[in-house]
């Protein structure tokens, strides 16, 4: 259509002018732009690219313009994504605000809250973290104990969260708190606050992989204005579930091993040898094919679900399968790689190993969390059995 041709032309021209050359190259993990007050990108172009895209609203192309979004319709967004893909532009912003918080704010927040928070998210000014899990409430998220008690115009919050992703780098937190102890799911509220508020402390958790992407977060008499609660008092569980769906979809489709997805075959060939273009060891070759076939069928299933959703079907249930299959698939990919690389896939650090090899070790360890974070495999199977298959608990 003529209108889209025009839009494509404009977009193309704008990108040409505004996307720095260094933002058109592949991105290492430590070059990811997460935004926020503490952002300190090693490449200044990252900041430039974010600022320009943020000003256009194109970090959130389909959000309404009034909240800083791009205001694009589906077709325009498709054009934008195509053009970004064409020039291999880096994503300007990675953000829990964009992926998780934003969508629920659009649905549940007051007009004032939207005005306050959405534009900041679009521009990447505030980096958000998620205060969900607690030490005693992992899979049983609704068992949370962090208390928020009314005191004048504020809530006073006491308790502890755990597995808060990058809490030590975050500016604000969206947090589930208990506002009624007499009931379980109906006593939870959803509230936002600044991590610099007095009484908030964080402590990174060191993982078996050696990295510390998560924190323990402690709240000691933290005062939060009532105006920062989203949705109604004790109505937080509904919001929490919606947000989890966004998280699961994100973890399963985008989150896993996308960076390592290229090269399984090549790494195996390099380490077990090849003969006439084939992986020399027939057993390894069979297992690589099995792994690749699962990944292929999985990606076709993600595509099918998207098509079905477009065609008006329901997606909710399928997203639970993605999480389960995606997690187990990613774990088996790294077990396979470790096996294929042998000693070279079990290095910790030092000269004895190249960076690909060390990456395999770390990703292998990291992958073990795939079936725990954002809903364990067991929880996901429960959900499929009950919601999709209609099996019931003991009566």
């Amino acid at each position, binding site marked *: 259509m003529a209108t889209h041709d025009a839009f494509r032309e404009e977009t193309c021209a704008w990108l040409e002018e505004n996307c720095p050359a260094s933002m058109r190259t592949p991105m290492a993990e430590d070059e990811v732009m997460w935004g926020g007050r503490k952002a300190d990108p090693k490449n200044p172009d990252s900041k430039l690219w974010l600022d320009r895209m943020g000003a256009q609203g194109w970090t959130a192309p389909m959000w309404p313009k009034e909240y800083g979004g791009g205001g694009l319709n589906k077709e325009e967004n498709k054009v934008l994504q195509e053009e970004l893909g064409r020039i291999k532009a880096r994503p300007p912003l990675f953000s829990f605000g964009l992926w998780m918080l934003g969508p629920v704010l659009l649905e549940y927040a007051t007009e004032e809250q939207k005005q306050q928070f959405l534009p900041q998210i679009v521009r990447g000014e505030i980096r958000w973290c998620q205060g969900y899990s607690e030490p005693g409430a992992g899979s049983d998220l609704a068992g949370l104990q962090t208390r928020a008690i009314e005191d004048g115009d504020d809530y006073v919050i006491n308790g502890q969260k755990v597995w808060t992703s990058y809490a030590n780098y975050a500016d604000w937190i969206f947090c589930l708190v208990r506002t009624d102890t007499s009931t379980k799911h109906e006593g939870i509220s959803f509230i936002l606050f600044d991590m610099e508020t007095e009484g908030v402390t964080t402590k990174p958790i060191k993982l078996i992989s050696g990295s510390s992407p998560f924190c323990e977060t402690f709240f000691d008499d933290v005062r939060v204005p009532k105006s920062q609660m989203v949705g109604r008092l004790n109505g937080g569980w509904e919001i929490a579930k919606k947000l989890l769906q966004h998280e699961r979809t994100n973890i399963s489709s985008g989150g896993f091993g996308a960076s390592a997805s290229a090269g399984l*075959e*090549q790494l*195996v*060939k390099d380490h077990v040898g*090849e003969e006439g*273009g*084939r*992986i020399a060891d*027939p057993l390894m*070759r*069979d297992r*690589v*094919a*099995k792994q*690749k*076939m*699962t990944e*292929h*069928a*999985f990606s*076709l*299933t993600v*595509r*099918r679900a998207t*098509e*079905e959703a477009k*065609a008006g*079907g329901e997606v909710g249930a*399928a997203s639970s*399968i993605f999480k*389960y*299959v995606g997690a187990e698939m990613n774990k088996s990919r790294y077990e396979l790689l470790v096996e294929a690389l042998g000693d070279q896939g079990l290095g910790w650090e030092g000269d004895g190993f190249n960076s690909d090899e060390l990456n395999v070790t770390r990703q292998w360890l990291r992958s073990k969390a795939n079936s725990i974070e954002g809903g364990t495999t*067991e929880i*996901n*199977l*429960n959900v*499929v*059995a*009950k919601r*999709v*298959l*209609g*099996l*019931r*608990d*003991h*009566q």
Partner: protein
Amino acid sequence: MGLVLTEEQTLLRDSARDFIQDKSPVSAFRALRDAGNEDGYSKELWQGMAEMGWAGMLIPEEHGGLDFGFQGMGIVMEEAGRTLTASPLLASVVLGGSAIVLAGSDAQEKDILPKLATGEILLALAVDEGAHHAPERIMMSATRDGDGFVLNGEKTAVLDGHIADKVIVAARTSGTPSQPGVTPEGLTLFVVDGDAQGLTKTRRDMVDHRNSDTLTFDNVRVSADAVLGGVDEGGHLLNMVLDRGRVALAAEMLGSMSQVFQLTLDYLKERRQFGQLIGSFQSLQHRAAHMFSEIELSKSAVLAALTAIEEDKANASQLASLAKAVVNEAYHLISKEGVQMHGGIGMTDEHDIGFYLKRARVTEHALGSTKYHRARYADLSGY
């Protein structure tokens, strides 16, 4: 992308489902088995299928077919698979029909397609020569003899071979065996009359009571116009035909496994032990959820492969191997779990689930085991 049915396809599915559930429930297959039917299918049912237009689904309209396309074929196969419908759909319509449509001369098309489209004649494809699918290893010889050829050798696992009016047979006119992912060289396909002199057709009694027959060629003479496609050029054609068969079979298997799963799920919701529905036991719930996810993956692989063949995509062979291997594994698991979850009743001949278990292993094996298709997929993917 073709991973969701169009409106037209949905209509086809509904009518296929109605027809199959009405005319060919599992009890029809059971009756066929109990009667010791030597044809391995019901002529009456086949007549009805032909009237539905299914015999001509892949045949151009000019030759009396519906030309509904390969996705439509997959839809029908899936519905037929639900009730284990025994019919010449796979052997005659998909394998035989595709071969003629893809490579038939004008004369061959005119001779065969109109009668194939009405279900009046049946075709079969003779490829394998041992207990395992291995089209690359064909050794049956076709020797030039004047204008024609003389065929010698034995073919195994010929689906619906003993009831075929014409057999399309792959024989070696030159060359040597190759690897799974490599197009075999030196093969030629021939269309041979079912009653040709020197051809012996023997029905084998398989565990699934379907037709997987042995054909012996003892100095069978054919004329030059029996060649389908070019001499020595049958490898590529055979690949294309087999891929169509694999994907159609995968669609049938998808229907069967969906049905086994449904039967099992129903049983989990109805059978009580220890005062509880057995479907409320978490370990069975998790296993059921896992099976469900395998079905979902299978469905995507089958739909993608059907589409790739319909649209003649470059990766059609890769997707065919993907679909067959993924479906093989899923049906294997689900047929096993189905029996286990049914407990004792699942072990009885009286219950239908045993039929699915038996058919599962035969179909798993037919046109390439999981192992075969993994190796082929790897070959086609360059590792």
